[in-house]
């Protein structure tokens, strides 16, 4: 396929400098630095326990780094709550799916619009006039996500009844509904079969291409990541051991050791 307009990768959107995080005596992250540029797909990989999820949790404000600095959109961030990060245009998915299992796909994705709703609780209860108009607008945005992810057939199915691969897709849908600038994906392909993985890859690429969304994703399956990412950071035992384009990283002896070395079997 010929691509006429190559994707543009812009200035630095997020900068992580010297970030450390400890839980009691355990050092989850020590002195990690990297950056994410606007419009790129950035992967954070590493063996189990390398600190990947901790890194993601620091970025979206769930954890506070004990040391170091995170700069987002040119502003250094102080202590921040996750909802503030969300308001700032960061959305995420979770490694072990955090959907409302009893609610339908539609309602789950609708929760992704929460922060975009202007009318208060009472207005929503009244469901009249401006509140109704607003809901219709949000519903339309949600329907666009449903259309984009091709999940029309499960619109009204409670997510608890869906197979795992589809639940992952609904979770991506909820994150997309927030129209994020930076999308954080925590192991989007974990536990999927080959076909589901390929679908997910296509959706990730489409999101990036169609909406220009910057994506930072965590994976421990190297193969998939190398195919879709622009740049890759490799963590091991909470430290950064490599950073660069997929081909460089793949050839890096430290990375090969971390993945194939005796320590991690």
């Amino acid at each position, binding site marked *: *396929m*010929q*691509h*006429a*307009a190559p994707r543009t990768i812009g200035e630095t959107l997020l900068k992580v400098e010297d970030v450390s995080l400890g839980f009691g005596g355990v050092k989850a992250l020590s002195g990690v630095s990297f950056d994410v540029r606007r419009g790129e797909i950035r992967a954070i990989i590493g063996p189990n326990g390398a600190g990947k999820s901790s890194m993601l949790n620091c970025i979206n404000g769930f954890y506070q780094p004990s040391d170091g600095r995170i700069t987002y959109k040119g502003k250094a961030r102080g202590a921040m709550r996750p909802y503030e990060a969300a308001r700032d245009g960061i959305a995420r998915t979770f490694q072990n799916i955090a959907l409302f299992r009893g609610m339908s796909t539609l309602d789950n994705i609708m929760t992704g619009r929460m922060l975009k709703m202007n009318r208060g609780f009472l207005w929503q209860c009244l469901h009249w006039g401006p509140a109704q108009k607003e809901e219709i607008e949000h*519903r*339309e945005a949600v*329907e*666009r996500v*449903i*259309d*984009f992810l*091709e999940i*029309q*057939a499960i*619109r*009204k199915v409670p997510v608890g009844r869906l197979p795992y691969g589809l639940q992952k897709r609904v979770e991506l849908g909820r994150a997309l509904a927030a129209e994020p600038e930076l999308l954080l994906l925590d192991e989007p392909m974990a536990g999927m079969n080959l*076909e589901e993985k*390929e679908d997910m890859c296509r959706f990730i690429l*489409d999101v990036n*291409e*169609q909406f220009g969304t910057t994506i930072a994703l965590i994976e421990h399956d190297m193969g998939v990541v190398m195919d879709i990412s622009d740049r890759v950071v490799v963590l091991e035992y909470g430290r950064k051991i490599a950073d660069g384009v997929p081909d460089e990283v793949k050839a890096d002896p430290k990375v090969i050791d971390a993945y194939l070395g005796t320590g991690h079997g």
Partner: protein
Amino acid sequence: MNGGISGDSTLDTFPKLLMRNALARGQRPAMREKDLGIWQSWTWAESAAEIRRIACGLAAIGVAREDKVVLVGDNRPRLYWSICAAQALGAVPVPVYQDAVADEMAFVIEHAEARVAVAEDQEQVDKLLLIRERTGLPKTIVYDDPRGMRNYANEGLVDFERLLAGGDDLAKRQPGFLDAEIARGKGSDASVMLYTSGTTGQPKGVLLTYENVIRTAENAIRFDGLTQDDDILAYLPMAWVGDHIFSYAEAYVAGFCVSCPESGATVMTDLKEIGPSFFFAPPRIFENILTQVAIRMEDAGAVKRWLFHTFMGIARRTGIAMMDGKDVSLVDRLLYALGERLVYGPLKNALGLARMRVGYTAGEAIGPDIFDFYRSLGLNLKQLYGATETSVFICMQPDGQIKSDTVGIPAPEVDIKIEESGEVLVRSPGIFKTYYKNDAATAAAKTADGFYRTGDAGFFDKDGHLKIIDRAKDVGRLSDGTLFAPKYIENKLKFFSYIKEAVAFGHGREYVACFVNIDLEAAGNWAERRGIAYASYQELAAKPEVLALVQECVEKANRDLSEDPALAGSQIRRFLVLHKELDADDGELTRTRKVRRGFIADRYGDLVEGLYSGRERAHIATTVTFEDGRKGRIEADLAIREAQRFAPAAHVELRKAG
């Protein structure tokens, strides 16, 4: 006028019928589609306006009289409109199966010499581009859905909006152009070209004229009393003649509304929302629906289950008799009315069939149990028999004369004669003009006096209903001379919900043997209920419990066969359950899901030999094609089983199994 049939000889093409509809019923709905979860509709006037724009747009990119325009995609309003738009220019629309892989599509595009194609989305465009690399055609590809298409820089790619803009431009420059083109069309022109699925050899392009299609549609509409108030859901492949007649031709002639489902996966939901009054489905869809109902009832609470089974018993006893106008006692009538309130009504509503006045099934034989299930609910489900070459209708079942094992009486204006070989010959206004660029095949299929050879073997029963047993050329003999009708046997097996496909062998052999494909959903559910764990089709198919289940079905089929003296000798002696599902992508089924027996016999030669040797196991290695077109390889060691057979009619055991 409500009926829509005018018999007006000036309305001899679809574009002319469209203009009539835009005037006569301009404000009535013509087309519906769900967009962002909400049904959108277009009136006949709006549809006509869109079609005019598309037609002018096609003219602007060079489509001219007698050009072939390929259409490929799911059922979408714009694709249906493009059919009529092409016809308005005197071009011939060629709908292609949307799930065909590039190789299959390439043949059609090259054979039809299609310079222009209208594609639904990126998936289809990718295939067409691949085909163009090899064959140079189609030169221009129009696409509807722009998703993912932003970065395509290939030549000759036209976005639908751009096509429309070009059309508006042309209409401004030459205001009288389109009306003049429409007026030039006449009834004897080619109206559509449909490729037959090709159970044997390469597909053939069947050219149907406007006269063929419109006359046949008029007859069918009159037969079932369809009006502009009817509603239909267009969800079957547009390349299939049935969809073309029901969702296009009949809609234009009668003026009713056609709804397009949101996606292939949402058909059941859309069905419920639209509640079509006229519904067509091949038997496998009716089977699937029934399987779903059965599975859900097994999961239901005890009270619901009791209600369901009790009232279904009543329905089976009285429902069909009531529909056929036979005498039914007052008590039974009351019970049935109660059942309608408690069970049948809600069930029909849940299935989206509550408003169905007429339902048809065709293409394959339908299981008597399945057929009776729907009819006992008070649904007017009927069978018809037809072919692409006859613009569908050969036989239809009139109301009140429905039988599950015949296809009914000849449709209006249809002559049928049966040759000595048993082959069914047909003459009707719907008989096709020619096979495109294939005079030899045309000559072979049409007799000098205008009859079309259906290639099916059948006979009329005592009530004048036609009964089809198999393809004439497939009807064979065992080595001892016993009649062997493979499809008849396969259908008997497929009527069991656990069996999805079957392939019977026996011509020139000592006995009948067969391959079986289990139905993953039904057999899987059965296995889960018994705590049998499995991870894949292959694993489930090899479970001894499943083999025993299939054996039971085979033996029941044998018992059935034994009741018919002519076929009692063709009971199944040995069978095996295949390790993979037969798949059109591997060439084992046609796109309309008919088994390609000869191909399968070659491909699984080792297994066939296993069936005719005394061995109890057979080994096989095959390549499979995945959905993305890549190939893989699977191997398996399959168990061969011996089934019990029964003496003709008397039901005396012949020999103990295995």
